[in-house]
């Protein structure tokens, strides 16, 4: 009897330990990440490329962060209060936090960071995100007060990205713009080296405030612009996680026993910019004709398979503003309506249009699908491949008729719409100007409840669906592909690989 009990206890112990062996984080190992491009700039205040942000997640701590449901959660700021009608933010900061070079993190450091972003002679690319800040006050060592020119609901979401990433004042003062070469943050991993087009290496920072963070000893980021090579390396066990999977590989990866595919809806939108100040599409009826001749579902299916959701607005699934009917309802392709609008617009036999696209297989395929669809009503599309940077310059100068360009997306709806459709907005490529829309966009920033903001956005989308300065076409889904060793990865819709709590099984 006693022996049976003994065996029973041993059995339970064995089973328990085996079960939890997989579940308990193991410390150690090197995590290998495959990026889709080589991050150019390691200074969050100067960075422009989206891929930089992947490395930043683990190198820099931010004032606040996002969780899986896109809610704001504490990070370097443990709590905050918003007062004065949304114009003042007071943050309580986490104590005993140090930067990688030993500098203490406190209210002074926060103040320095904001001053750096707002310094016009420094020319930070974050300026436009924080230019409503009128003053940063150090209340005490762990309390900082930020005053805004006017209420701005998206402010916390902005601080969950690059604008909220804290750099070490000591290092930044010493290095200036060269900070990008020796970045110093307060994240669980510190910078070791960066070899262009080869790798970026981060190493665990032992004095990080979160004792549960930093299971993995080192992280190596490797850029693979060739998507085939990226996947091949994951399959060959050279990488543990990769970003952005090509559409046609999704079915195979789903069924592959060695890899795990994680899918969520993303935050970005893609479609066609229309220059409303230039012929032929300065004519609203013709824009509507073009829109009516396009079948969004077919574009999504032919070019992307199941990896995008066809859409008609700037708010992908997952955002609280998504199910506004004007945003989520897909117009059906209607050739009769298209022809009617053509007649209304004075071009019953169609018209010619030059569509500019960036190099790359998918934009070209989308363009060709659109081209063959609209040719049925007589709209003759001429495709022109223009390199990304040149395209942006042409947008600025208004030297285009239509172009395929989208936006990578941000958690707060304001960042997905404001700068694109407000009069004179930095990202308003179509040169669209509508004072009612301007008023509503400003209002949506100041209003504080979700319901109020949805009402504003509903009206905006109704107007935009009629004016059509931009044809929204689809919302790319967010994919992450994991190898067998990586555990504990939490997939957040913003597409950022947060690696501080993951671990590697041998």
């Amino acid at each position, binding site marked *: 009897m006693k022996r049976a009990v003994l065996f029973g206890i041993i059995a339970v112990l064995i089973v328990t330990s085996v079960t939890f062996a997989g579940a308990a984080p193991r410390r150690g190992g090197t995590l290998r990440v495959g990026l889709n491009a*080589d*991050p*150019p*700039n390691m200074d969050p205040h100067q960075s*422009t*490329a989206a891929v930089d942000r992947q490395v930043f997640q683990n190198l820099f701590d931010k004032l606040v962060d996002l969780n899986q449901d896109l809610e704001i959660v504490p990070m370097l700021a443990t709590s905050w209060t918003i007062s004065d009608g949304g114009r003042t933010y007071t943050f309580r900061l986490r104590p005993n936090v140090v930067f990688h070079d030993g500098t203490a993190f406190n209210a002074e450091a926060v103040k320095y960071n904001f001053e750096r972003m707002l310094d*016009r*002679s*420094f*020319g*930070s*690319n974050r*300026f*436009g995100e924080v230019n409503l800040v009128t003053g940063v006050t150090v209340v005490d060592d762990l309390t900082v007060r930020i005053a805004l020119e006017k209420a701005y609901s998206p402010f916390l979401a902005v601080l969950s990205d690059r604008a909220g990433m804290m750099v070490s004042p000591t290092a930044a003062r010493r290095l200036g*713009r*060269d900070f*990008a*070469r020796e970045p110093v943050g307060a994240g669980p991993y510190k910078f070791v080296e*960066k*070899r*262009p*087009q*080869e790798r970026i290496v981060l190493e665990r920072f032992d004095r990080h405030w979160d004792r549960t963070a930093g299971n993995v000893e080192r992280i190596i980021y490797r850029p*693979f*612009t*060739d998507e*085939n*090579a990226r996947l*091949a*390396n994951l399959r*060959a066990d*050279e990488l543990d996680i990769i970003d952005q999977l090509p559409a046609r590989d999704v079915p195979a990866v789903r069924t592959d026993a060695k890899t795990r595919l994680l899918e969520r809806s993303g935050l970005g939108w893609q479609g066609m910019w229309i220059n409303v100040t230039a012929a032929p599409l300065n004519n609203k009826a013709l824009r509507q004709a073009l829109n009516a001749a396009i079948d969004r579902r077919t574009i999504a299916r032919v070019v992307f398979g199941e990896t995008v959701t066809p859409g008609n607005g700037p708010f992908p699934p997952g955002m609280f503003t998504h199910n506004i009917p004007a945003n989520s309802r897909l117009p059906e392709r209607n050739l009769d309506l298209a022809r009617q609008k053509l007649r209304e617009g004075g071009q019953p036999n169609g018209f010619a249009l030059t569509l500019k696209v960036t*190099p790359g297989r998918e934009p070209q395929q989308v363009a060709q699908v659109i081209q063959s669809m609209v040719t049925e009503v007589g709209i003759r599309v001429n495709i022109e491949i223009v*390199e*990304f*940077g*040149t395209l*942006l*310059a*042409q947008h*600025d100068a208004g030297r285009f008729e239509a172009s395929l360009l989208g*936006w990578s997306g941000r958690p707060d709806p304001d960042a997905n719409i404001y700068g694109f459709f407000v009069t004179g907005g*930095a*990202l308003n490529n179509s040169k669209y100007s509508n004072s009612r829309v301007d008023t509503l966009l400003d209002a949506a920033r100041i209003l504080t409840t979700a319901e109020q903001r949805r009402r504003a956005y509903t009206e905006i989308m109704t107007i935009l669906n009629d004016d059509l300065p931009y044809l929204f076409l689809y919302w790319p889904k967010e994919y992450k592909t994991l190898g067998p060793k990586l555990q504990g990865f939490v997939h957040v819709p913003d597409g950022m690989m947060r690696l501080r709590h993951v671990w590697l099984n041998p």
Partner: protein
Amino acid sequence: MSRFLARRLLLTLPVLFFVSLIVFSLISLIPGDPARVFLGEEVTTEALEVLRKQLGLDRPVHIRYLYWLGRVVRGDLGKSVRDGRPVLDTLLQKLPTTMELAVTSLIVAWAIAIPGGLLAAWKRRSAWDYAATTVSLAGISIPNFWLGIMLIYLLAVNQRLLPPSGYVEPWVDLGRNLRLMVMPSIVLGSALAALVMRLLRSSLIEVLGTDYVRTAHAKGLNDRVVVVKHAMKNAMIPVVTIMGLQLSGLLGGAVITETIFAIPGFGRLAVDSILTRDYPMVQGVVLFAALAVVLTNLFVDMVYAFLDPRIRLEERPA
């Protein structure tokens, strides 16, 4: 000898001047505001101004050229606009990778071309000759990017014999490094092989017909000895002399090969920087490539002149 040296150097200077002029004007002619073109989606006017100053775009063209030349001569090729690192550092970092590819490709090329050319010239007008000529013509005619894709498909996708693409340093994992070099070297080497084989064949034929060789024959030395010992040595001279050309071909071929096989070398850098409008880097890459070729030519000429006194004494056509 030193007079010859000085003369040769002096004649290289105008070439270098024109090279620098070509490189500079190439970049200056690109349309669009370079600062805006580079910075991308999120940009402020302040950031634009800072970048413009950094690129020196606020000054007239000829002044910019002189400033640029001054910096280049001192080894300052500017900083990459993408990641802020000095262009020269990145170039030097990428060079060993391409050098490795170049060396392995050269080995492949000469391993095919030398025996091939030898056989073709020796057994002239025989089946060997025609076969060799056709093979070398085929080698020149195959588009190397297609060859690369086909090799990847056959050897890596269809039959998993080799890894499809990528790169790892030799001191990290030599076995994998060599396996990754197999297909790129074949692609790059075969194109070069064809060129070298043709040249070797015609130059060997020329040498075999000279009096010097006929005399050796008459003296009774057997065929093989004559060919291998006497003719080859002289016939190799043009092959070595076009080293500059071979280098140029290798660098150009590396552009496509490195892109297909995802090798982070010089050629890949050229394509990436051109496509992303990283002007300082493009300037650096193009300048570096041309400089390498010019200096190789100079070096080869020197060696050639040193070995063959006749050349030294020949007057250059006025």
